[in-house]
């Protein structure tokens, strides 16, 4: 990939990130909108997890990642620490791939 393409992509990515960071200060919004904005990344991350688990490019997919995610949800619900959750999910997926 050419350097100019990388710079363009990098600049564009930075514009997205910086617009978000620099656009709003700590206290510029009423409480309810503020609460919604606080929730938005969490909801976005859940969608991202779902898309990353159940799709492959532009196609829906059901493979060893799904049980891995299920293991992660299970481990989180019993309050396991994050490193264990990640390792558990990765291990689960790897094992299921070997078995099936």
């Amino acid at each position, binding site marked *: *990939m*050419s350097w100019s*393409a*990388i710079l*363009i*992509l*990098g600049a*564009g*990515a930075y514009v*997205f*990130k*910086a617009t*978000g*960071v*620099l*656009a*709003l*200060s700590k206290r510029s919004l009423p409480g*309810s*909108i*503020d609460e*919604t*904005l*606080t*929730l938005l*990344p969490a*909801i*976005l*991350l*859940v*969608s*991202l*997890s*779902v*898309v*990353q*688990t*159940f*799709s492959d490019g*532009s*196609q*829906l997919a059901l493979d060893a*990642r799904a049980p*891995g*995610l299920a*293991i*992660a*949800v299970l*481990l989180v*619900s019993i309050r396991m620490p*994050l490193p264990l*959750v*990640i390792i558990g*999910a*990765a291990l*689960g*997926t*790897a*094992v299921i*791939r070997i078995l099936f």
Partner: protein
Amino acid sequence: MSLIVFTGASQFAAVGVLTAGGSAAAAIATGLLLASRNLVYGISIGKLLNSAWLPRTVAAHLVVDETTAMAISQREPSHGRAAFWITAVSEFTLWNLGTLAGALSGEALADPKSLGLDAAFPATFIALALPQLRAITSWTLAILSGTVALLLVTVTPPGIPVLATALIVGGVSMSRSLSFDRINR
């Protein structure tokens, strides 16, 4: 790219487009679509950070899925800020070192899928995000959002599903909270 772009999904996607024979323009467009969710993340991180402009402009470069996930998972804002910076510095360092190592080792490395590493990312995000969804309304919004995202995967380019659900969910809940505010007054 790991130094200048520093957004994992965009980097993988751009390289993917090029190796499949796509143009640089298509690679950039795909990369930018995937980077757009960082704007939403940036809003939350911006509210979390202190007001000095220099750290904020530096921090902006480091706003990605992982740093945001770690930052929002903390109860105290001060912990959130610490989580952001610690994750950002370590991830920027390791991501770039990893990129270098990968570039140098090439074919010699094992397939990440055989280690289940492709499940590790969604596992991390869901582990950090789920505890944030405490009320039933947020659960509902998350389920709605995930469903819509999956429905959009087959009909929109990569990056759109997640961004679109952010906009839809954000719009829906903001309009609900606005009308709720009016009722309360």
